[in-house]
């Protein structure tokens, strides 16, 4: 029994030993397998995982650079940035948004509307993205909140930058405004700048802000930050500074600009003044303006609707998008067409009986009894229609159209401020395309005096008179003078190829308009030394006014049907420096409504030549 037991005991213990050793081998193999897996992960694939580990923790953050300033030719600040004191909320850092806002309401009123907005945004954004609760705070309130912020869960007091326009509505149509990049902008204006993808990044939406947006924007900096798995920033690993936006210098003289704007106040009007030597814009006014700061701080639906419904159309940039019949100002072009075609010369006299018959139609002069026999200078002085009817009849519409084009009418200048309109200069081809029929003989007469189909913008009229004033050089209007440190070269101004004698006759006519006895703008004469101004009045019928009857001159006619008043001018006559076009909507007559304004602005500009320098900053009201 014992022997059996002992033998059996020996058997099972040696079986155990054998099997246990086998298990030991198996265990060793399995541990070896684990170590080889470690070797694979940590030695063979280590580089790959190191990279993955870095992409895990390192985030790149774009730093928006400050937007460049916009200044006038004397460095007066027209657009700049100011600190925006605001309160943000980080939803992830508070247990209850309501509670945080309740605590905040001890410092600043929190309306139900703000609450709803914060909650809505908190839902749509990731929990760590800050939501703006309120901005545009004054410093006192901000400082108090900033001090208390550690006790307000999720509340962050933050200083942002916001665009500000110190001259408010005096420059709105030049500068435009900025606002946050929209979906549409990303679709249409994506230039590959990563800044555009920064939520809320402001870009120029109109005016110079839009035209020179890219240089104004600058270049975004990049911050390398280490974040944890929850996206919280742990520390900064590195930083590449961006480049602040370039300052933009405009050709404007804010002093003239402001004076012109004041002068056109309460009118629906525009004025453009150009340096005839190089095309620099000195003043560019569309009245009334709007306050671009409102686009920054936001306005109510009501305010927006009011602005759109305003009959004075404050949102329309009339200086380049308002198309008006040029009326008698266009007689300059007709005269030049006649002179250049040889249809008339300086001595050609045409008799004006007060009307002209063409077929069964009678075309009237504005002076019932007629002007008698007039040459081109006289005809301009008294703005005789019949003289120019006859010139139009002789040269035809197409010759007038070609001349108009050479003086910038019907043209776009690739002007920096967006929104240029082309206007209309009728020609045979144009009428065929537009109406499917050729020109009628009457069209030539209407066109000759700037009525009928002819339309032009104030900018185009200013260019026209500029090219007359400078002796026939095709200057191009421009308003950006310097981008950062780089001067912007004025576009080339090649001679148009008009005989100097023809230009001289037109200039003499315009001189007579203002300075000779019986000129249509005799009351707007400038008397200062070296301030002699030449000009041409114009009165343009408002489309549809004819149905009311007459020429819509009287005060009894409703405002919106009254004739537009135009005046184009340049000075000094002896050595032309500035040219200008002024259009006053429904001003009734060029000599009555437009010329006096032009005279004042021109006088101011000429006086500035004696005492140049920065315009004193206006009662620049900073909103908010």
């Amino acid at each position, binding site marked *: 029994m014992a022997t059996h037991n002992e033998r059996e005991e020996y058997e099972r213990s040696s079986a155990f030993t054998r099997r246990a050793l086998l298990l030991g081998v198996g265990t060793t193999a399995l541990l070896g397998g684990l170590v080889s897996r470690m070797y694979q*992960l940590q030695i063979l*694939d280590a580089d790959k995982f190191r990279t993955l580990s870095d992409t895990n923790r390192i985030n790149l953050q774009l730093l928006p650079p400050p937007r460049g300033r916009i200044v006038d030719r004397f460095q007066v600040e027209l657009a700049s940035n100011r600190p925006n004191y605001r309160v943000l909320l980080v939803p992830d850092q508070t247990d209850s948004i309501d509670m945080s806002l309740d605590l905040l309401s001890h410092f600043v009123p929190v309306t139900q509307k703000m609450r709803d907005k914060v909650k809505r945004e908190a839902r749509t954004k990731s929990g760590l993205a800050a939501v703006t609760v309120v901005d545009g705070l004054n410093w006192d309130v901000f400082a108090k909140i900033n001090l208390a912020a550690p006790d307000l869960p999720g509340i962050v007091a933050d200083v942002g930058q916001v665009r500000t326009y110190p001259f408010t509505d005096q420059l709105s149509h030049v500068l435009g405004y900025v606002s946050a990049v929209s979906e549409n902008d990303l679709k249409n204006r994506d230039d590959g700048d990563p800044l555009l993808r920064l939520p809320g990044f402001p870009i120029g939406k109109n005016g110079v802000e839009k035209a020179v947006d890219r240089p104004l924007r600058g270049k975004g900096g990049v911050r390398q930050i280490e974040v944890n798995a929850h996206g919280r920033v742990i520390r900064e690993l590195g930083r590449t500074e961006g480049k602040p936006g370039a300052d933009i210098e405009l050709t404007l003289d804010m002093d003239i600009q402001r004076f012109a704007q004041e002068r056109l106040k309460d009118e629906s009007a525009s004025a453009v003044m150009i340096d005839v030597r190089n095309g620099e814009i000195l003043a560019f006014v569309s009245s009334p303006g709007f306050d671009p700061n409102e686009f920054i701080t936001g306005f109510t639906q009501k305010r927006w609707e009011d602005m759109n419904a305003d009959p004075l159309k404050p949102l329309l940039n009339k200086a380049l998008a308002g198309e008006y019949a040029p009326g008698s100002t266009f007689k300059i072009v007709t005269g030049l067409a006649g002179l250049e075609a040889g249809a008339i010369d300086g001595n050609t006299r045409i008799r004006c009986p007060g009307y002209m018959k063409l077929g069964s139609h009678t075309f009237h002069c504005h002076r019932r009894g007629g002007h008698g026999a007039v040459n081109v200078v006289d005809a301009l002085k008294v703005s005789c229609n019949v003289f120019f009817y006859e010139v139009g009849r002789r040269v035809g519409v197409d010759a007038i159209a070609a001349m108009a084009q050479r003086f910038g009418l019907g043209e776009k200048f690739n002007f920096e401020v967006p929104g240029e309109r082309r206007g209309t200069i009728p020609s045979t081809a144009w009428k065929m395309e537009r109406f499917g029929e050729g020109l009628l003989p009457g069209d030539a007469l209407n066109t000759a005096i700037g009525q009928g189909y002819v339309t032009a913008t104030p900018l185009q009229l200013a260019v026209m008179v500029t090219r007359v004033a400078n002796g026939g050089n095709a200057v191009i209007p421009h308003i950006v003078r310097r981008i950062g440190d780089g001067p912007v070269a004025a576009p080339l101004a090649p001679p148009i190829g008009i005989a100097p004698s023809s230009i001289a006759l037109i200039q003499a006519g315009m001189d007579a308009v203002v300075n000779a006895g019986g000129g249509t703008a005799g009351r707007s004469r400038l008397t200062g030394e070296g301030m002699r101004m030449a000009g041409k009045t114009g009165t343009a019928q408002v489309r549809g006014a004819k149905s009311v009857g007459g020429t819509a001159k009287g005060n009894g006619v409703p405002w919106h049907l009254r004739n537009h008043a135009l005046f184009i001018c340049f000075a000094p006559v002896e050595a032309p420096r500035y040219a200008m076009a002024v259009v006053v909507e429904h001003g009734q007559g060029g000599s009555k409504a437009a010329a006096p304004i032009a005279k004042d602005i021109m006088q101011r500009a000429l006086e500035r030549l004696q005492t140049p320098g920065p315009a004193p900053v206006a009662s620049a009201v900073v909103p908010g």
Partner: protein
Amino acid sequence: MAGVRALHMDRPRPSPFAKLLDLHWPLLLAITAIASIGFLMLYSVAGGNLDPWAMRQIVRFGVGLVILLVFAMIDIKLWMALAYPFYGVTIVLLLVVQFAGRFGKGAERWIDLGIIQIQPSELAKLALVLALARFFHGRSFEDAVKLKSLVVPLGLIGLPVALVLMQPNLGTALILCFIGACILFVSGLRWWIIIAGLLAVAGAVPIGWEFLHDYQKQRVYTFLDPESDPLGTGYNIMQSYIAMGSGGLFGKGFLGGTQSQLDFLPEKHTDFILPMLGEEFGFAGCTVLVGLYALVLLIGFTIALSARSHFARLAALGLTMNFLAYILINMAMVMGVIPVVGIPLPLVSYGGTAMLTVMMGFGILMSVHVHRQSDLPRHGGLAF
């Protein structure tokens, strides 16, 4: 028979002091070294703080050491006598949590004893080892190797496995099967039975698949292709890879693991503590840990091989295999070799129950060592 008895009479029972001297000190040292690696990592997980994990883990380890020493002093005869009662109590506890779980939320696996919470499924591993050792100790070698004598041991294994699976706790059920299989293997089971058994298991896998819970299946899918869903269920395993791999040869340095310190690595103080070690101490650190584990396993084998009684041998080997199972499953899981099952890294991961159960196991192993010369009667209960 008389001779056997006489043998017992001849050998005086050693005093507790002598037993202390006879402890396997290298084993204790190796265990302490492994636990210390754990303390270090838990200190690092907390960003260089003893709170909230490292200090508590140290206290637990201290408690575990006391339990180990007490268990080591308990005579191996008593352990054999307690084998079946302990098994019975464990089954009852498993039933209790199963029953109580119906009123709790989801998988209720804990019993709260006020001071400590215990997980009966952890105890089941120890109970199964002792019960199987007790069973085979009483069988003759001829009996033990036969097919028909498998009925009882398979029943002993199957009962707790079934109860644990119902919890559901797939990881522990697999460990129980593994331990059971190892003990059957070393008790001399015929090779053809072993091969047939392996084939049967292979055939049962597709059937078993159908019984898996959705979350368990998901873990398997994720395992098969973790990158398919890097922000969902594959996130853990991807971050685990990245942590391990980015450590390289020597790691990013103590407290310098970006994956773990910046919270990308999930569960890094419990199941995913190895990737943290891998990240901060690299391949070198991991190899040291595996080396220490290997040393403990080697000591376990030598204790098993040098024990005189069959019960002691089987118990020692079963406990060693239990320890191995933790290591294999946890490491293979965090390195993406097997699907994620919630098994901690023994002695290193933060957690009370696992620490205490593992230390209890080492206590019994130590008892086997201290009492390696004891002979045990075949069918005896308590026979002092």
